[in-house]
């Protein structure tokens, strides 16, 4: 008994002193080496009278643990002191610039298309697409705009052949035709894409973007159209309230037709959507003309619904304060970097359209 206590006291006092790593290691081997003091005591366990053996073993284990813990904490203490000493010599100027990185950007039109798709996704629209080159039939005739219709003048069309049979689509509406010819009603689609008109000035670009919407079912009326667009505009501009006006207009492929205006005001050179005393024309829409439905073999007595067409570039300009339409396509590094979006900013319903 007194042996154990003696060893303990002696070494606790030894370990309490200032030691270097070799001294610690020496102590470790003195105690726990093959013939170390503690190791020797363990060998003795068998020789002790049975009555005392249990207590001896228990005491010995306690002392062993105590000394071992102390030694390893001493070792740790020493090692971390060593590391700290080394680190002191490794100090660098952390204000030096990081390794260079480049940030890519998503074009504001692409971002806007994703935003639009996300909003319409929520109310059950799916995305359809069509080719940029269209035939005259899909772009005009099927859309109730036969040859010699004055409405064709409203579209300055790029043609690819002398017979004017092949052209660059002047709107995304031919996707309506393609979709309805391909499938059976009901239809609930949006079709974003490139569109072309031979018009070029400050507010017109020979290429621009549109999104077409089409909802055909058994009893879709103008109220559904109004509700859908009201929902879309509110969501898109991320405002709670929007003042919107439907006014009669004319498109050959819808009847009745409407143009939609929203209220806005200018504040500090920025456009504020949803409020104010000015009207801003934002899109055209209407109930799909029965002639169009007949052209795609949908029975207008059974099915009806609405269509709309929105200028994507214009929406992007309004939402993001872009003044010049032409800049979209000018590919100026500074502009792309300023108006572009980080690729990780994917517009979704749950995290919102924009940060």
């Amino acid at each position, binding site marked *: 008994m007194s042996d154990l206590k003696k060893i303990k006291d002696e070494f606790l006092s030894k370990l309490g002193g200032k030691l270097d790593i070799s001294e610690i290691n020496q102590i470790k081997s003195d105690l726990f080496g093959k013939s170390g003091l503690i190791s020797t005591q363990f060998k003795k366990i068998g020789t002790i009278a049975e009555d005392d053996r249990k207590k001896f073993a228990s005491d010995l284990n306690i002392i062993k643990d105590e000394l071992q813990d102390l030694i390893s904490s001493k070792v740790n203490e020493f090692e971390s002191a060593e590391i700290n000493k080394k680190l002191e010599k490794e100090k660098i100027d952390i204000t030096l610039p990081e390794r260079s990185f480049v940030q890519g950007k998503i074009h504001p039109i692409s971002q806007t298309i994703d935003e639009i798709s996300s909003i319409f996704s929520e109310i*059950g629209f799916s*995305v359809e697409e069509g080719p940029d080159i269209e035939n005259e039939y899909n772009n005009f005739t099927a859309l109730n705009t036969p040859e*010699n219709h004055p409405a064709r003048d409203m579209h300055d069309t*790029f043609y690819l052949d002398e017979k004017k049979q092949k052209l660059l689509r002047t709107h995304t509406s031919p996707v309506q035709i393609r979709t309805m010819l391909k499938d059976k009603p009901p239809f609930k689609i949006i079709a974003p894409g490139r569109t072309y008109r031979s018009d070029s000035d400050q507010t017109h670009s020979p290429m621009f973007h549109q999104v077409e919407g089409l909802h055909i079912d058994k009893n879709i009326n*103008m109220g559904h159209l109004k509700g859908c667009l009201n929902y879309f505009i509110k969501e898109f501009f991320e405002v709670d309230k929007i003042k919107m006006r439907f006014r009669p207009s004319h498109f050959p492929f819808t009847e*009745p037709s409407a143009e939609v205006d929203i209220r806005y005001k200018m504040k500090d050179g920025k456009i504020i959507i949803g409020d104010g005393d000015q009207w801003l024309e934002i899109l055209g829409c209407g109930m799909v003309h029965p002639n169009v439905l007949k052209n795609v073999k949908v029975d207008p007595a059974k099915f009806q619904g609405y269509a709309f067409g929105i200028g994507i570039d214009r929406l992007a300009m309004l939402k993001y304060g872009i003044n010049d339409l032409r800049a979209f396509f000018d590919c*100026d590094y500074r502009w792309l970097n300023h108006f572009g979006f980080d690729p990780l900013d994917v517009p979704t319903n749950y995290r919102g359209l924009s940060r």
Partner: protein
Amino acid sequence: MKITFDWLKDHLKTNLKEKNLLEQLTNIGLEVESAESLSADNGLFKIAEIVKIKKHPNADRLKVCDVNIKENEIKKVVCGAENAKEGMLTIYAPPGAIIPKSKMKLVIAKIRGVTSYGMLCSESELNLTDESDGIIELPNGYKKDIGKSYFSKSKSNLIDLSITPNRPDCLGIRGIARDLAASGFGKLMDLKVKKIHSKNKHTLKVKINKEKGQGCIAFGSCLITNVKNSESPNWLKDKLISVGQKPISAIVDITNYVMLDMNRPLHAYDADKINHGIIVRNSKLGEKFTALDNKSYKLENGMCVISDSKGVLGLGGIIGGTRSSTELHTKNVLLESAYFEPGSIRNTAKKLNIDTDAKFRFERGIDPLSIEDGLNKAVKLIKEICGGEISKIDIQKIEPYKTKKIIFEPNVFEKISGFKISLKEMVKILEDLGFGVKKYKKGFKLDVPSWRPDISQEVDIVEELVRISGYEKIKFIEPIKKRKKSTLNKYQKLFHFLQRSVASKGYLEAITWSFTDQRYNDYFRDTKKEIRIINPISSELGVLRNSIFSNLIMYMNKNLDRGFKDLSIFEIGPIFNGSNPGEQNTVVCGLSAGKKSRLSWIEKDRNVDVFDVKRDVIQTLVEAGYDSQKFFIDSETPNYFHPGKSGRLFLNNKKDQIVAYFGEIHPNILKQVDMKTESLVGFEIFMDNLKLPVKTLNDLKVKFSFSDYQKSERDFAFIVNKDVNAQDLIKSISSIDKSLVKDVKIFDVYQGGNIPENQKSIAINVTIQSSEKTLNEADLEQINNLIIKTVENKTGAKIRS
């Protein structure tokens, strides 16, 4: 269409204000584009005469005019108009006047050293018309009015309406008034035009030839003899000026007035210049005539012409000819009021490229029953103002007018509009719009008014009813948030994924036009067919792009010129292979210029190189879910790439479809486009050639297997012929035993030194791991030997000892 409230009041009885009018016009679909006073102080714009012109001493194109503005009060005005000449009557704006178009206030100013007191105005500056070539030239009749204000003192604003092409009736003031009255804005006045009574015979014979495709259905006319054409009375001049028209002479002004008032175009001929009566017929190929625009037109077969025995007098409903035009001294006038088929008008005008006010109206559809009213109204005015004797009215027709009838089932209204109005209200609206309404079974039988060519079926009636009762009555039905079909298909998802994946590698997304400069397109056309646009906006945008590189390189160059040196841009969009719908492919195209690292304290300067773009391509594809282990690459690339530093990529060694090209852009192209950069590399990923994965990501995630047994790495160095690809070595090693060979890395490629010429040394690190046990030395030795043997056999390599 330009109107004033005052003129509307000729047809409309109302106590409402102009503010209400503007709102109501837009509400019923007659969109107000602008409403403004012709000039804030329109009394300031005076009729004046240029008495003398001198050349400006310091400017070739400018003139210094002495202008008589009032009883020989002469002002010096500097003017740049080419048409300014001595003796010309025009409109003078004094200092202090505000120019209606620019809203600029005039001041006395020195122009190139000569002081100018005011300005001579063009029609466009006064917002009268779009005519901006030269200053207004007033007819001689105005000489007595020098010093007087050109504009009447009317307070009525000029209201510019945008009339949609389906509403020709609203190209006349009365049509607009009718729509307004139907919507509850005042009451339409009953203006029965008094029929003229004459006993005089109409001595000019008119005949419409009955032939195939005859564009003239009816031709009404009246002969007025011994007229004295003169200046119009003030009320008429003021009326025309108030809507931006320039008064010319009484007869011309009267025909314009009737046209604007009731959308009834008329044409006046000098009857003495017509030889033996009028024949309305199809033109013959090669016939020629000189039109009132002083251009000579050569006609094709089958155009509707008004002719006499000598030949063509004019193109019916489009433009008259000089041979039979009226002049100030014309004594005998034949006044025409006809109906021309819209399709025929449009065909002819399009072929000859003529655009006139008459054509604009006839191609939209003129009221066929307005022939007589128009003649009565005009002839009465001519007689009042110019005197003379009137003949009986003669109307030739080749077919009678048939009233269109529509059966209307009232329930259709609510089915389409989603709201209800009473039957009584429906009847009132339709009757106010001029429909004949009769009860028919459960609904109505409607007579469509002759001035509404746009109405032919039930849904057109619905539109009229919704329009007049008000679009604000349409309810908002909240959309249901339910999705039956996924928003994007697999292809669209891939598109969005690639787009954001490439952007995340430091590329700025560009959107450029689908057309391009032929010269640039040619650099990247390779063997593709050129696709021309027949009517391009400019010759620099004359072809559809065969590759996106054409645009990207052009814009890259512009950005380099702006001083940016290291730049990566990309575009995802269509390229075109033919001019038929569908002959296009979606391509992701990227371009990187300059250095990867420049002027860095920590990294060495390094140009972007082909292995940077190769990484971008492969990483993008791997991120999109394609297995890079299977990729197969060779060096056959189009001629716009550096022949030695470019590659093409297939998804696997079957090489069925090219998925991407990448490499250095050919230095010759850089030279030709004068691009100054250290390096230019690019890639094209062909989306349509990417097989859409059959398995979803979920399917792939199900099975998760891994090995916890020890990995071993072994290094090999092989000597191979120079033309052996690294890819062949890697593929032959990884194909030995896929369950054991986990990774193959090339960590050194070396030529020269003690390596024989035409050979190279490739050092490879192979990771070996079993999923069943820890491999022992013997196992490893066996694999090592297998690797060496396989590589040596397959590639002719020799292991370096």
